């Protein structure tokens, strides 16, 4: 571990839904530019953690610092503007808009003050991003007509348009074919090379192993492991949680 100060530093995050404890004092820290896998069985609290970090729901207790600022009280759109951007497990495109129209929303509302690529023109920036994810030739088609893998790419492109420092990719590959999974992994590597730290939430272990430098394991709302991927995969507790006794 380096001594570099973390980009995201969340401490003892708790979230209860009625009598059910979804998150029980979870700590998570991400360094700038890092690639982290967040894994765990269904119902272990991964999505709840994503929601708490991105501001879709607020945590009951705990502190979240991002880029040196306390953000646990900020609404989701302000966290997006600061640079925590998430994608959704089930793609949520703006269906009344074209593909490029989807991107102009974060470009206009989140990324206004940090234009990239030497252009401040929303359309040009959107086209550059679509080029990156391979949707350039679909730019002016209605987003409602995209295929499943294209929707995942649009979801990522829209997140990139918000100019994230930390991208939380919530099961971007669920339901995709092997070759499509590879495509998305390559895409995430490309984004990471641009300096974006990425948390990948995924059930496809192959993808997690190929992509992440570090893995965090949640089981029943508790963090049970947080180490390099090879160490985590051999951790007795993790094996037990996944495979049973």
């Amino acid at each position: 571990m380096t001594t570099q100060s973390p980009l995201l530093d969340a401490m003892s995050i708790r979230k209860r839904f009625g009598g059910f404890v979804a998150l029980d004092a979870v700590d998570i820290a991400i360094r700038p530019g890092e690639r982290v896998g967040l894994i765990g069985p269904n119902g272990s609290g991964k999505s709840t953690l994503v929601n708490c970090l991105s501001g879709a729901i607020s945590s009951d207790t705990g502190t979240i610092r991002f880029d040196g600022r306390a953000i646990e009280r900020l609404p989701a759109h302000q966290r997006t503007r600061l640079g925590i951007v998430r994608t959704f497990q089930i793609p949520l495109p703006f269906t009344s808009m074209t593909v490029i129209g989807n991107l102009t929303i974060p470009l206009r509302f989140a990324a206004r003050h940090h234009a990239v690529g030497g252009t401040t023109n929303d359309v040009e920036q959107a086209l550059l991003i679509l080029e990156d994810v391979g949707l350039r030739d679909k730019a002016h088609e209605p987003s409602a007509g995209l295929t499943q893998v294209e929707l995942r790419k649009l979801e990522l492109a829209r997140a990139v348009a918000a100019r994230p420092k930390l991208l939380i990719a919530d099961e971007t590959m669920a339901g995709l074919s092997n070759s499509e999974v590879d495509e998305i992994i390559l895409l995430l590597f490309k984004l990471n090379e641009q300096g974006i730290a990425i948390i990948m939430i995924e059930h496809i272990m192959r993808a997690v192993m190929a992509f992440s430098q570090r893995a965090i394991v949640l089981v029943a709302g508790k963090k049970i492991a947080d180490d390099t991927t090879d160490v985590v995969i051999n951790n007795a507790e993790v094996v037990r949680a996944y495979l049973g006794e």
Partner: protein
Amino acid sequence: MRRIPSWIWPVLVALFILALSRVVKNEYYMFAGYVVLQYIVLASAWNILGGYSGYVNFGSAAFFGIGAYGAVVLDKLWQPPLVVAIVFGGIVASLVGLVTAYLTLRLRGVFFAIATLALAIVLQTLVMNWDFVGGPLGYYSVRPDSIAGFPSYVNYLFVIMLGLALIAVLVARAIELSFIGRGLAAIRDNELAAECCGVPTLRLKVFATMVSGGLMGMAGAPFPYYITYLDPNSAFSLAYGINSIAMPLIGGMTHWIGPVIGAVLLAVIQQVATVTISSELNLMIVGVLLISFITLAPNGIVGLFERYRQKRQRRLST
């Protein structure tokens, strides 16, 4: 040559109608036209919240009634010029919009609609029990015989409402084309995704509710002078709520011209039915038209037109 900006068309149409109102002698046309114009304001205002952001407001009557009774209060106190009453009605209605927004915008879908419907009923009950403005007995407003520069008082009211309709259409158009309109459209498509794309959803919704309510309040302010006898039942009539939803729906909700088309169509039919058959039929006409449009043309007349244009473009390109 520079392209003619499209806001010029509503202005030209308004000027043309203004010129017509100087020529037409029959006062009935002013009287009926006033109602059509009033519905252009209500439908355009409703569409700013309901059409652009997808929050269905069933309580247009509440904001309209606030404007009307705001004018009554001023009339009892010091009888200011009508323009003052309009500004007053707009401000009070948009403040009520602000409070309503904070109380109800956490509700979605049908729950928001019910909450706004309740607002109209609560306000009607309050006014019913407020003796200063006449309570259930209503209020007779004495209107001046004439206004300098206008052939008659009804003509004056008509011109005022024409001005308000123009303002409402231009405001709706400006919002639609601005980044606020883009943000509202994102909210309509998916509010959670919009928020996570950096759209300040709550602030935009509150803004839309205030502008929408304010315009409705302005439309209500001249109403006591128009009908001369105002009672709570006519000021808070459910017909306003239903018509201001039906008109954008029939005309098309994604373009500012939609509510205008819907308002002209529906209000003219209603006016004709009122004089030829009976005003009892009005709500039934709305119902029949609504059902046919929802089943046959869910995107309204504007939607039909756009589908036709796309088809033709595709044919031309192949």
